[in-house]
């Protein structure tokens, strides 16, 4: 039987206490598998970001059970000691505004995570060059982020998210800053990556035009996952 790479069981998140308590996520339960592309769709304030930060072990849930890659990381409390180590070894992040480190060049931005994981400079550089080549920005490896276009920056950000051979990629509106054509190209690339490299990709998006490219769509409204749609 196929094992889920992300498993959420009755996960809730409440901010504040007493009368001022606000529940951002209410008993979310779903599973995501390797090679799957999943869209988190919903209006602003619906709880998408809370959901993605809980999957990324950045925000601690208030209750429920969360498993990543078969390991239970939260069961009414954190069961991991070093969530950053878990992130840098298992999860890649792609942001709305590429969020490359401005004082590192393209190659260094991509190699940073793998070097933090103890991979040698030589090996991490080789892997980074391979990824940059795959994403069509190899000739930009010595450029600074400020010298890249929006599309190029997002491709470099995708390369960075893949540098640590992650099992999960969490993307927060990765196409929001791109025009329609480039946005489509980036989404097609993510879909290709998911299928070819067996990475689970969870994308927060507002853009309904991109929905046909996802395997599944989770609609988040008022902290609840109201609809599960499969393509």
């Amino acid at each position, binding site marked *: 039987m196929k094992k889920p790479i992300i498993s959420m069981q009755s996960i809730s998140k409440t901010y504040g206490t007493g009368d001022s308590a606000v529940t951002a996520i209410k008993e979310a339960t779903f599973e995501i598998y390797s090679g799957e592309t999943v869209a988190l769709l919903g209006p*602003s*304030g619906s709880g998408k*970001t809370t959901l*993605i*930060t809980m999957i*990324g072990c*950045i*925000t601690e849930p208030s209750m429920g059970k969360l498993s990543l890659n078969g390991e239970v990381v939260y069961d009414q409390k954190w069961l991991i000691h*070093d969530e*950053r*180590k*878990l*992130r*840098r*070894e298992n*999860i890649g*992040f792609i*942001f*709305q*505004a590429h*969020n490359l*480190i*401005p*004082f*590192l060049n393209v190659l*260094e931005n991509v*190699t*940073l*995570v793998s*070097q*933090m994981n103890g991979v040698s*400079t030589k090996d991490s550089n080789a892997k980074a060059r391979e990824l940059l080549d795959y994403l069509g920005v190899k000739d930009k490896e010595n450029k*600074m982020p400020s010298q890249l276009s929006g599309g190029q920056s997002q491709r470099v950000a995708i390369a*960075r998210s893949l540098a640590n051979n992650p099992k999960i990629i969490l993307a*927060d*509106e990765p196409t*929001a800053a791109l025009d329609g054509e480039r946005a489509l190209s980036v989404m097609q690339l993510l879909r290709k990556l998911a299928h070819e490299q067996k990475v689970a990709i969870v994308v927060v998006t507002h853009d309904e035009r991109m929905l046909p490219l996802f395997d599944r769509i989770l609609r988040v409204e008022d902290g609840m996952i109201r609809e599960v749609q499969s393509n």
Partner: protein
Amino acid sequence: MINLAQRDIAHSLGKFIVTALGVGMLIGVVLIMIGVYRGMVHDAMIVPNDIAADLWVVQKDTLGPFAENSRLHEDLKYSLKGFLGVDEVHPITFQSLQILQAKKPIRVFALGYDVFSGYAPYTLNVGRSIRIPHKEIIVDTKTGFKLGDSIPLGRETYTVVGMTHKAVSSGGDPMVYLDLHEAQELQFLFSNEQLRNDRFRGGNSVSTATVNTIVLTLKEGFDPKKVAREIQRWKHQSVYTQQEQSDILTKNLIERSAKQIGMFTVILLIVSSVIISLIIYTMTIGKMKEIAILKLIGAPNIIITKMIGQQSVLLGILAFIGGNIFANVSANFFPKTVILIPTDALKLFLVIIIVSILASLSGIRTALRVDPSSAIGG
């Protein structure tokens, strides 16, 4: 592993260097303040070292002749010569004077000594010693006079026959040297009008045969403290050894100035550390988003701490180098002696490194509190 601090600095190198130079100026001022203190101690000891006495006889119950006024009869020298162990006896006068050099008034410190004794309480740089006790003077190069120049002093005009180099008083005034009797007249002789008035009043004018101190050198094998005790017992004067005179100068005379400089140095160091701290804090605040991204992609705290700490220490090192250059260049333009010594610079370097590390703590504290989720849009 990529050095994040180095990459960040390289990315905004100009800004970093300008900031470091700004802090460096402050550190330079700290170094100069220490140098001014060293210069004061050095200057204070020039005259006593040139005089090179074993004992200083001064007026009873005074700390003369530098720290307090002291007056002795010159003829005391004859009885002092008779003490067991005393080799040479030199009466000396000291006096602050204001003279004109190129129409500008300058302050000098005049030393009068017996030119016939063969004793020379100075180190000549050019020219010769005073040969005749009349209208000849030795001056320091710092006065601006040259050999052969004429200097009007009191009722006479003196000719410069010799020059010393960097001989100054404890107050930093350049030294001039003249014959004892001429120096006594300059200091103790009343004006003609006062002499006449004194005669009308039936009083006697005071003799000019007065000196400020009589310095002694001892024969080999005699303990200066024992001889000093004998003189104090029989002649009822205060007597100090060379070491005691040095202590009076360094501890009594310049102690307050040294404390003042010390306080100023401490305040400057505190200001420097606050400024470094603020700069590092501001630099950290400017990188909040990058720090959030680093934390989000899994960078451990040690990497972020190292980045901020290394930048802070590098800022301190660069500022120290800049400050050292600034201090060494500007030290020559100070009117008083500024002595910069490597051990002081080394001690300050260690202080700056400690200050830089402490200054980085507020930045590190802020960085470690950054929420990684702030890198993700809502």
